């Protein structure tokens, strides 16, 4: 188990380096001199430009720049923006917004997705199943930003059930955006659970459970669900990371000052360090979520061996 964990962490390193380097290279290959972009139309004195180039290692070859940046990043210093603010503090107020948003979305997709999936799986081929299946297909088919705008218009503006935008009203303002953000994954979770339930319903051990004379709810909860939900854990675990990096669209529609918006602005103002910093953190979250899921898998399914 420990050997496995260590090996997995070692395997993460090339992935982390690869992803961040790609982003780093891309960001610093953005056309136009970032220093000049920062200054706008006003010409900067050459000495200032030189100083800034020096400070951000802009004159080194790309690989060296990257190596220097990552060396600092691993000491917790993700660099400074061109405004002189550290990357960590520039986004300090933004992380909680995205985290809360992703969390609401995640809980929603977990609860609603599993419930709908179990319901459909137990009634496979019946009316309920078809409605749920059709509904999830529809959710996947309608682009998230259309769902977001429609939800905002109907539930926010017209019927005034939820706050229209912003984060002023605490957790309440996260409900609607969270549901919208989670809806896409909800459809996948529901389908995954449905298939898994339908497959496990035919398993021999389900027949054994009935032959043991167990009450119906016990057969379903202890024997069917426990087995059927194992594959869903993988999806849900990894999805928390995807929700955070995918929150961009929802944050834009609901005007929430989250990480996504921060990145968007950073990309457009060519603030490379900011983009790379955030990417590094997001990739780290994704990698660790993956590792935790894999370890959890072994706890849930005793047949899994870690070699």
């Amino acid at each position: 188990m420990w050997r496995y964990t260590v090996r997995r962490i070692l395997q993460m390193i090339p992935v982390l380096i690869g992803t961040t380097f790609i982003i780093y290279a891309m960001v610093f290959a953005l056309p136009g001199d970032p220093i000049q972009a920062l200054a706008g139309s006003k010409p900067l004195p050459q000495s200032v430009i030189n100083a800034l180039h020096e400070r951000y290692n802009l004159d080194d070859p790309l690989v060296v720049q990257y190596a220097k940046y990552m060396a600092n990043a691993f000491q917790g210093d993700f660099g400074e923006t061109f405004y002189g603010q550290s990357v960590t503090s520039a986004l300090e107020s933004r992380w909680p917004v995205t985290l809360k948003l992703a969390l609401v979305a995640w809980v929603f997709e977990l609860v609603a997705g599993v419930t709908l999936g179990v319901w459909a799986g137990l009634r496979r081929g019946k009316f309920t199943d078809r409605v749920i299946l059709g509904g999830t297909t529809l959710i996947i088919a309608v682009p998230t930003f259309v769902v977001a705008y429609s939800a905002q218009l109907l539930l926010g503006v017209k019927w005034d059930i939820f706050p229209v935008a912003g984060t002023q009203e605490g957790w309440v303002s996260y409900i609607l955006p969270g549901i919208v953000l989670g809806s896409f994954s909800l459809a996948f979770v529901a389908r995954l659970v449905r298939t898994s339930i339908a497959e496990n319903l035919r398993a021999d051990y389900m027949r054994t459970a009935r032959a043991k004379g167990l009450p119906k709810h016990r057969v379903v909860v202890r024997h069917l669900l426990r087995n059927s939900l194992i594959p869903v854990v993988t999806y849900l675990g990894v999805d928390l990371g995807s929700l955070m990096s995918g929150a961009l669209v929802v944050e834009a529609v609901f005007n929430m000052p989250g990480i996504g918006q921060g990145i968007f602005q950073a990309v457009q103002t060519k603030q490379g360090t900011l983009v790379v910093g955030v990417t590094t953190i997001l990739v780290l979250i994704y990698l660790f979520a993956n590792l935790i899921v894999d370890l959890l898998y072994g706890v849930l399914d005793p047949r899994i061996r870690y070699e």
Partner: protein
Amino acid sequence: MSNTQSGTAAATATTGGTVAGRSASLAGDAWRELRRKPSFIAGLLLLLLVGSMAAFPSLWTSREANEQCNARMAKTGPESLNPFSGSEHPFGFDVSGCDYWAQMVHGARAPIVIGITVTLVALLLSVLLGSLSGYYGGWLDMLISRITDIAFGLPFILGALVVLTAFPEHDIWAIVLVLSAMMWTTMTRLMRGQVIAAKDQDYVHAAKMLGASDLRVIFRHILPNAIAPVFIYATLNIALAISAASVLDFLGVGLDYPSLSWGVQLADAQAEFLEHPYLMVYPAIFLSLTLLSFLMLGDAVRDAFDPKLR
């Protein structure tokens, strides 16, 4: 010597024939099953409809894209919500005053081309890399798997956003390139797993013992038996690629003017959403119906090919 060789060839031919025969009958069963499925028929018809718009827009409208526009008519909604009312502009006008129906028809090509091309590229890559990785294993597998991990680990939207900001020209092919670079990973992993499972089957061992070359083993024996799930995922992938392209359009890093696509129309409509919801409703319906048709086809095909759940 020549005797042995011809014997080997004959034996290989027989094994190959059996495999092909079996997959043919499986496909035949699936086809019979599919023809009776209303969702499959509906998906096919929808796709035919949208496909004909993409291929032959002149069948559906006499106007060219971005032509005969009248700025004075900009943001004028349809006279009637009934698109068959016989009005000359059944969908009204877009933000630049162009006939919205004509723009809608011309907006079909980009998403369809993007969805299909991205998936074809991804399919090609995944079959190639997945088979190599799964069949040969060892350091090659290690290398391909790590590269797959890296591409898979890149935050999707973020990656596309950065790349597209780096390249100023945003025509269809730029979008195809970026999305292909992001979307080959899942299918490659799927393919690799399938190949690993298939290469341990007895018929593969038999073919190898009879002296079939690696290439022949992969193409005649492994791929035909391993590729079905990848194909099924590919139909879903078309929908996902179209959807992703529309998100890029929405974020303003997608197709540039004068390219038309439903995504761009949706992006243009956002600012007007509260006052002129129809601007968003029409492209949303077209886009969603297209995605729906691919999803329904994918579902139907998967059910038909998965006898376990039939």
